[in-house]
């Protein structure tokens, strides 16, 4: 047994609140790993993705979800995130193993904090902080934007469901921004 052990304390752990017809929570154990497609090795990397997850790499601004629940978010021509559930701090080796050296991978798990906003009023709340046209968002669409000066990735997970990712160091400010928006339309 090591003399010391480390304990995990994600910045938004435990957030789980209802506001009228909306619900805000911080999903547990969200692991995020970036996949970068090598210049000149794109086809091999895309094949590796397909082999690893059983789904093709989505187009930029779209997502695809594997049968086992991993979500591929295509954020730009040569960059995608794999988002999946994993509690242990070894997400990057897991994805790197699946890529078999065909893509570059970087652990992004602790770079981000995640919020899940659900409910019929969610879009009304988000239009207070999100400059994007959310009415034009199909389920599965994803985009990078800024909310209250904070870089944010927004994904529509359902008709009334939205996944938000923002920097973990400013998680408190981000939570406040989202909660304020919810309260202002509740």
């Amino acid at each position, binding site marked *: 047994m090591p003399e010391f052990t480390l304990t995990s304390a994600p910045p938004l752990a435990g957030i789980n609140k209802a506001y009228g017809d909306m619900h805000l929570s911080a999903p547990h154990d969200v692991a995020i790993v970036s996949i970068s497609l090598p210049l000149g090795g794109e086809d091999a990397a895309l094949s590796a993705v397909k082999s690893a997850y059983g789904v093709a790499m989505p187009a930029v601004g779209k997502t695809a979800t594997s049968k086992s629940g991993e979500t591929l978010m295509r954020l730009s021509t040569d960059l995608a995130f794999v988002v999946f559930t994993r509690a242990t701090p070894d997400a990057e080796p897991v994805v790197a193993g699946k890529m078999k050296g065909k893509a570059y991978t970087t652990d992004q798990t*602790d770079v981000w904090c995640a919020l899940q906003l659900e409910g019929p009023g969610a879009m009304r709340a988000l239009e207070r902080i999100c400059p994007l046209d959310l009415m034009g968002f199909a389920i599965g669409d994803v985009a990078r934007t800024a909310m209250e000066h904070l870089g944010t990735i927004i994904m529509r997970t359902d008709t009334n469901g939205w996944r938000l990712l923002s920097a973990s160091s400013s998680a408190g400010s981000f939570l406040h921004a989202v909660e304020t928006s919810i309260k202002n339309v509740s």
Partner: protein
Amino acid sequence: MSQVNRIKGGQIDRSQTWDFTFNSKKMQGHPGDTLASALVANGQKLVGRSFKYHRPRGIFSAGSEEPNALVQLRKGAHCEPNTRATVAELFDGLSATSQNHRGSLDYDLMAVTDFMSPFLSAGFYYKTFMWPRKFWEKIYEPIIRSSAGLGRLSMEEDPDTYDKGFLHCDLLVIGAGPAGLSAALSAARSGARVILADEDFTPGGRLNGETFELGNMSGSDWAALTVAELSAMDNVRVMTRTTIYGAYDHGTYGALERVTDHLATSGDQPRQILWRIYSKRAVLAAGATERPIAFGNNDRPGVMMAGAVRTYVNRFGATPGQQVGVFTNNDDGWRTAADLAAKGVNVIAIIDSRDAPAVCDVPGARHIRNAAVMDTAGRKGLKSVTLTDGQVIPVDCLAVSGGWNPNVHLTCHQRGRPEWRDDLSAFVPGGDLPVGMAVAGAANGSMTLAAALAEGHAQAAAQLKDIGIKAAKADVPQAEDEPRECAAFWHVKDSTKRAWVDLQNDVTVKDVKLANTEGFRSVELLKRYTTMGMATDQGKTSNIAGLAILAEAAGKTIPEVGTTIFRPPYTPIPMGALGGRARGKDFRPYRLTPSHKWAEENGATFVEVGNWLRSQWFARPGEKGWRDSVDREVEMTRGSVGICDVTTLGKIDVQGKDAAAFLNKVYANGFAKLDVGKVRYGIMLREDGICYDDGTTARMSENHFVMTTTTANAVLVFRRMEFARQCLWPNMDVHLISTTDGWAQFAVAGPNARNLLRKVVDEAHDMSNEAFPFMACGEVTVCGGMPARLFRISFSGELAYEIAVPARYGNSMMSVLMQAGAEYDAVPYGTEALGVMRIEKGHAAGNELNGQTTAHNLGMGRMVSQKKECIGNVLSQRPEMQREDAIKLVGFKPVDPSETLIAGSHFINKGAEANTANDQGWMTSVAYSPTLGHSIGLGFIKSGDTRKGEIVRAVSPLHGVEMEVEIVSAHFIDPEGERLRA
């Protein structure tokens, strides 16, 4: 009954009666009233005092153009000055007070200024208060400011909250009058996403104030039905109480929604929302504003705009007078007379400036043609008017119509200029409209109802076609083209009394002429000299008459004179709404380090570093000030071991087959041959050769590097590297991603650093000096398998490491490091101790990398490689940047060790005068060195590298301090680097 002027009809809800007060006087009104209409109904003519002369003033209009009826609304901290009573919705319990008077509204002591008016013409204070000069700031200006003005702030913090938001649409329709409703309906039925915004709380525009018939129903009923249909459609957003106040680039519009202003309290909701609307296309249907005619004493309470008078009668069931006269130069003025007569209000006379037959039959009214009003009587309320032929007509209300001005304001927000139309005697939108905007209805000069409806549909259809949406078939209701003939008539020349052009700023016809006489002949200068068109109404009722009078005085045509530039906002926007939710703690986001919680629990004082909150020092009981804490932290770190959270430094993951070559281009020094498992210090130059950042980069594997940047430049470096990757060298296989927030990183420094870390890093990793020497790096595990990264780098000059673990374990890691270090008396240290130790070691930081200094200045000129292509190395070789006598970074210590160096002091040679010509350089960073026992500093001084041992003066004129200092090496401790290699 208090509502002495309430008459039948209108769109108010008489089933409810609300109480309100005006200057503490109890009054009553109904839902659907504005404060102004309720005041009219209650017979309150006098509502305020004018800006400059404190003249009694009454309600003048029925809309957002109101110049007179400005009140203070609500009480205490909620009190808002300069609220236009004409757009303030009545609510039960409303409290309003008049403003700009000393003493009561009826007996304003400052009305004495009116008797001094011959001395107070336009620009009087430019001419009058010339001497003595020092009196201006202390005496003249305070007196002028206290005697003239509008409302007063509560001086308490605004308790309301505000918000902002973003909306998107295919078509934005601005204004819900007949043209706007027609446009919105056509677009909505076509399936387009439509936003319909109107500043009123009841959409309909003039349809609510008129007695128009549309098809087989009244105009107001058609408006209500249309709004109901639109509101029920998923593709339409109807926004009432919303003013589109500005047209910005690319179809973006600013909108202010007044969410709770019509309620007694806001509850928990934001009072107002500032929206940014992104539209693909827009139809401006902002209508038109009626303009007055200037004549003697035309500002008395009871002199009103004719269209407003009939709005009060038709929409609000309240008559502004019992004996009404109409003074007009156009057919539309007759409509007022006809509507009032139909409601049973006595219309005494219709005074038409034209020599033309009656437009319609008005029972009981005299038609006086080819005539004008030249004076009025009744100080606090109109009693009579005197015509140019000398006859006096007793009236308690005069409805004046000088024609209508299309509301072209938003068409000019992108510098478009309106065009004059002789047939309307008015400006209409020019051809240079904001991108994506079309104009319909009265705003476009289509002044009749049928024309407005048809044009609303046509413009919407054309706009939709532009974006590929086929418009639905026209379904425009039957409507009339009412008579609109108008003959230009701006002011009554026969008047000998003051004739007011701008009621809000007390500008008269004489003032306009005076400005022209004195050479202020440009309309822009006229505005500044007379203040015409300024303040809350922005001259909506005065501008055109003013420039017409200027044209007349200057012998020009009105289009030759032109208009001033219309700029946003169209109507006033409260500062609170502009601030939105960004108040107090929420003014900007904050970032916390992973060990923030631990630091809070252990007495840290925090300092803002950009958005970050960093531990500045950790005070212990008994310490009397920050210096005690910082000195201790430095001494304990140098004596044993200290720990500092350095997560804030930027971290960029660089991967790719060309990663090494790429770094070799962005760093000035060589990186291509950095061994795997090694770290190297590097400097980055701008293209002009100036140093802009420094840091270390570790090679984790052949194609994988981890770069650190300074905290301040993390984003800048990433942005520049991304630019280089995408634009300069797109054929390189390089991929960048920030991991700043992903890793909690701690500096562990001091002679016992290795001993401490050996207790945390798993045994499989050899940490001996031989296996893991200075500038080594690698992947390790800690605490039984936790992935971590270890770098042997030192900012303090001590044996030091930086160890990183996934950020969610950072708080725990800090605690573990302190526990493991307990036997070595480990100390947490903050940014102050960090700063002291880096100055002792002679490391440059932000004060030295200030955007003006080169590697040559920093003593690192030889690091800039000329054997490769890299950003900045060419221009860094310019002769001026390589001068031998250039400033060089060196150390300084006071000749008298008891003296304290001051950062920012300038160096002057002994015996030389302390002036800029003799300036040798400046002190960049200072600290008290507990290691050396005296103050030390870093600074730039000419040829500093060859002047060690020389005594110069450090002069700070700002502090009135100068002292002698010795030029020394910047490396105050361990110049050979033995400690960090130990």
